[in-house]
């Protein structure tokens, strides 16, 4: 049961900006960590790009789930977790983080912001605290006000794409991914295995 990344982004028109992110790649193989992190940034951005304003969705890709909340004002959050981590806790976390972020960081700064310019330091703490959902959110059993039927479920990343678009092409063109990560994506049949072991045969 694991969280891998927590990011705050801005869904500008036309581009999506990463504002701030926290990562936990400690369970991945040491030499894969930087590539994995880049992929998570790439994925988070892509998902926000392809999601509507005012929507919540969970996108499944192999053994991990990307939970996204795009607010009506364009502020968005993405949590990348494994498939054991309870979905409800992820959306509670996203609500909380975006709320706090919007109160601490001036709206004016969102469209042009980047991790270097934005001052919001709470993400690492949240990521760490929420690794154990029962510690972080003791009320997990209690019914949340959040209506889960409004969360869109995508069974693959591909289902977010336009007709004819290929993930491979987006990967090659990406400015977020370094050469090593792109090579990584090509040589491994599975983009990355969440727990860092070799891909299943």
């Amino acid at each position, binding site marked *: *049961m694991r969280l891998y990344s927590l990011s705050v982004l801005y869904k500008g028109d036309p581009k999506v900006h990463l504002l701030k992110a926290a990562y936990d790649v400690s369970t991945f193989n040491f*030499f894969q960590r930087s590539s994995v992190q880049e992929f998570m940034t790439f994925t988070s951005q892509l998902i926000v790009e392809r999601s509507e304003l005012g929507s919540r969705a969970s996108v499944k890709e192999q053994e991990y789930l990307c939970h996204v909340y795009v607010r009506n004002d364009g502020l968005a959050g993405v949590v990348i977790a494994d498939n*054991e981590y*309870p979905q409800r806790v992820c959306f509670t976390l996203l609500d909380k983080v975006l709320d706090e972020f919007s109160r601490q960081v001036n709206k004016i700064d969102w469209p042009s912001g980047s991790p270097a310019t934005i001052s919001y330091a709470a993400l690492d703490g949240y990521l760490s605290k929420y690794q154990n959902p029962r510690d972080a959110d003791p009320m997990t059993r209690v019914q949340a006000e959040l209506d889960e039927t409004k969360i869109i479920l995508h069974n693959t990343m591909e289902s977010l794409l336009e007709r004819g678009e290929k993930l491979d092409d987006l990967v090659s063109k990406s400015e977020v991914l370094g050469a090593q990560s792109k*090579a990584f994506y090509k040589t491994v049949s599975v983009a990355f295995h969440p*727990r860092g*072991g*070799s891909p299943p045969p």
Partner: protein
Amino acid sequence: MAESPEEVAVLVQRVVKDIRNAFQRNPHIDEIGLIPCPEARYNRSPIVLVENKLGVESWCVKFLLPYVHNKLVLYRQRRQWLNKDELIDITCTLLLLNPDFTTAWNVRKELILSGTLNPLKDLHLGKLALTKFPKSPETWIHRRWVLQQLIQENSLPSLVTKGNLGAAPVERIHRLVQEEMNVCSEAAGRYPSNYNAWSHRIWVLQHLGKLTVKVLLDELSSTKYWVSMHVSDHSGFHYRQFLLKSLIGRTVTDSNVLVQNQIINEQNPSLQKEEESAGAEAACAEEQSVDLPRHLEEELELCTELIDSYPGHETLWCHRRCVFYLQHHLSNKIPLLSAVVSSVDSSDETLNNSHHSPATSPMAQAMDVDGLNESSSKQGYTQETKRLKRAPMQDSFGPEVEYQFIDKVLSTCRDADQARFATAYRKWLVTFLGQ
């Protein structure tokens, strides 16, 4: 980079040497990995050592692996000689790239048997291979072979001083067991439902740990958090089922032995070898004090907590079935056990009373015919005895409780899978109890 045979040979020699040097420079290497790197950087070694992590750049693997593989095969076919050091280096390189190459492990077995290679090195090599290949069957198999070698060595007193492990035999075994538990736990974390890791763990408990009550209870406690954080790991929960079943097997056997010993001792006090039976009885008494029903109840509670916190995981419902089944079977064994124990009680009382003064003995005897041993302090008032005297525990477990639990889940859950699993569990329960 040109790939002439000479260049490949030079490259391979360099890589094998670099790997050996890396291990010599840093005995604390704890992880291996492949570095995605499509092109060689001019004249730089593909072997990278960073913070106790050993990496191999991916570009060299297509040259390295076939070459080293071929070399070992030629050696095996007696078409090319390799000396002991070369064999050690080559097999090490091979196994870090492909630990399922059985021949390489077998060559190392021969080196161990001839005394050239320290078996502990293979435990270390295997542990490293598992960081990248956590399921590798051949690695686990070889590991068990090495452990068997180490146990055998342990049992020969002449090897104690020359032994590989130092320290006293019992301490050595204990350390080995702990290390194996760690290796299994890490490998289990690197691949979901890692059957090979968990079955190795069971094997170690059986062959090195001897399934003592202490080791079983320790493992029950130390894996509790792990399974709570890996709620769909079927192998992890299966391990706990194994621990509980072994505890039951252990306790029931030992309590039968304890009871039999007491009967024999009462009937033939002169034959009682005090020290020996006192020791054995003490051990049995310790094992008798395992409160099995409490452990099973706690397991069921854990299961309930996890089902409630993390809806929609079938593994938890399968675990519940197993725990309920064990509780049910254990409670069916109890009547047999208490009948045996109470007959021991009454024979105990008559023996005691023969020493009482005549004035009190008729009264004492009248009481003792009916009573159990409340008045006797000779009988140890163990947990087990206490529990046997209580009414059967229907409040905290049993079919009624289960049906209530299922109903609660069905009325409050919003996860479709959870509802499905709860319904299936109810069906199972009905069928099971109907038998």
